[in-house]
């Protein structure tokens, strides 16, 4: 049975709170300003992001990504403040992604955060990237106590909340599902604009054949690197042709592979999510992370949830894909519970488990 409704430890705001959130753990730099008014629901005042898009066939490397963030950070923060109509003096705390993510890009963002913190004498709040996704998903969708499927280029986890901790029920044993999709997109030279995952989704809609790929759920977990090797092997198959040929020929097109890959990995994700739901008796699924914006995944999850008389919650690309507002939201919640990151402890870390965070703002 899901936990009984406990009173939230988060005390009434008492006054308006404003938080600036800065995110840059992968190839997107985002800044957002969140307001928790003294009465009323949290409001997004602004949420601006810029993505570092590499040429087709190329992934993003830490150094170039860090350079991108350094180039865009100040402009985006400025635009963010202007759009919200707020000055740095009015901000209560500066929230930044402490981890997990890529080292150099994370560090680039935190340098800006520290400088602003010292200039304007505002406290810093280090935020776990995954918790940011979860808190924004909860805020936007209003889901009460869902099983969370967090799927992105860097992370693939099934999470459920219990006793002030986001517990990881299942996860990938090797690479993230977004990483698997992105790397396949590079193999078939799809454009990275707006994102490789989006383009795979569009190509998959044109696929006609479901090819056999290894289905690798391991209990509550999944393994994806073998599937990537298998789908790559198809591109070396003599039946693989980029151009569409006659209908009756035994051909494999990139569209068929996109379709087969999506169907296989998404089915696996739906299975491990269902296992977690069965385990804790939850009827809600919340999908967060960049891959969560994939409509086929949402549809497949919806079918499973409906069969269990449950429902799926998902957000749109503004909040699914890495953004600054989710960092502001998670940061402000912990700030209101008295959490701050002292300057000397404001380092970043590439590995930061979701369950390491003490979720003080929930009962």
């Amino acid at each position, binding site marked *: 049975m899901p936990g009984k409704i406990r009173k939230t430890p988060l005390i009434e705001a008492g006054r308006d709170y404003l938080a600036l959130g800065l995110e840059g753990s992968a190839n997107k730099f985002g800044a957002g300003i969140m307001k928790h008014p003294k009465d009323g629901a949290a409001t997004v005042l602004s949420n601006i992001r810029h993505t570092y898009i590499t040429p087709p066939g190329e992934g993003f490397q830490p150094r170039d990504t860090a350079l991108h963030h350094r180039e865009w950070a100040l402009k985006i923060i400025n635009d963010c403040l202007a759009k919200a109509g707020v000055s740095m003096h009015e901000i209560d705390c500066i929230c930044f992604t402490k981890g997990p993510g890529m080292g150099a890009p994370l560090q680039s963002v935190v340098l800006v955060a520290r400088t602003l913190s010292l200039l304007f004498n505002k406290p810093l709040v280090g935020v776990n990237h995954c918790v940011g996704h979860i808190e924004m998903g909860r805020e936007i969708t209003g889901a009460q106590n869902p099983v969370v499927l967090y799927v992105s280029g860097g992370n693939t986890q099934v999470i459920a909340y219990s006793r002030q901790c986001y517990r990881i029920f299942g996860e990938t044993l090797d690479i993230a599902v977004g990483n698997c999709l992105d790397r396949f997109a590079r193999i078939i030279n799809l454009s990275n604009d707006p994102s490789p995952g989006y383009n795979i989704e569009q190509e998959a809609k044109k696929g006609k054949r479901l090819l056999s790929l290894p289905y690798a759920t391991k209990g509550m977990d999944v393994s994806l690197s073998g599937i990537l090797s298998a789908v790559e092997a198809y591109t070396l198959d003599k039946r693989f042709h980029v151009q569409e040929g006659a209908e009756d020929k035994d051909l494999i097109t990139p569209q068929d592979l996109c379709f087969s890959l999506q169907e296989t990995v998404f089915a696996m994700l739906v299975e491990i999510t269902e296992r977690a739901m069965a385990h804790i008796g939850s009827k809600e699924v919340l999908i967060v992370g960049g891959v969560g914006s994939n409509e086929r995944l949402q549809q497949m999850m919806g079918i499973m949830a409906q069969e269990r008389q449950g429902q799926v919650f998902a957000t749109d690309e503004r909040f699914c894909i890495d953004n600054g507002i989710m960092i502001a939201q998670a940061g402000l919640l912990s700030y209101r519970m008295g959490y701050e990151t002292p300057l000397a402890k404001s*380092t970043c870390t590439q590995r930061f488990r979701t369950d390491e965070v003490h979720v003080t703002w929930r009962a």
Partner: protein
Amino acid sequence: MSENWHSVTLKIPFASEKHALIAKRTIEVDPELQPHAVKRIITVEENILIAAFSTLTIRLARLVANAFLENVDLVVRTLEQFGEEAENPPSS
């Protein structure tokens, strides 16, 4: 042992001592990635930020100096963008 090490000292003037201290406090938080091969001392004298590096190899001397200057550049640009506004808080 340290006599055979390479040393690089960088001195960067800032608009004020306050800004130089902000740069020092911002940059010194992150430890060097190779503490056994790189020794770093960051100080401030009036409005000048001074970073003294001692490294085991020439290659490391180039890398740490370059990384430090890139970090200083980011801090400087941030101070440039927001410095004036910070000096002028709105009257409550």
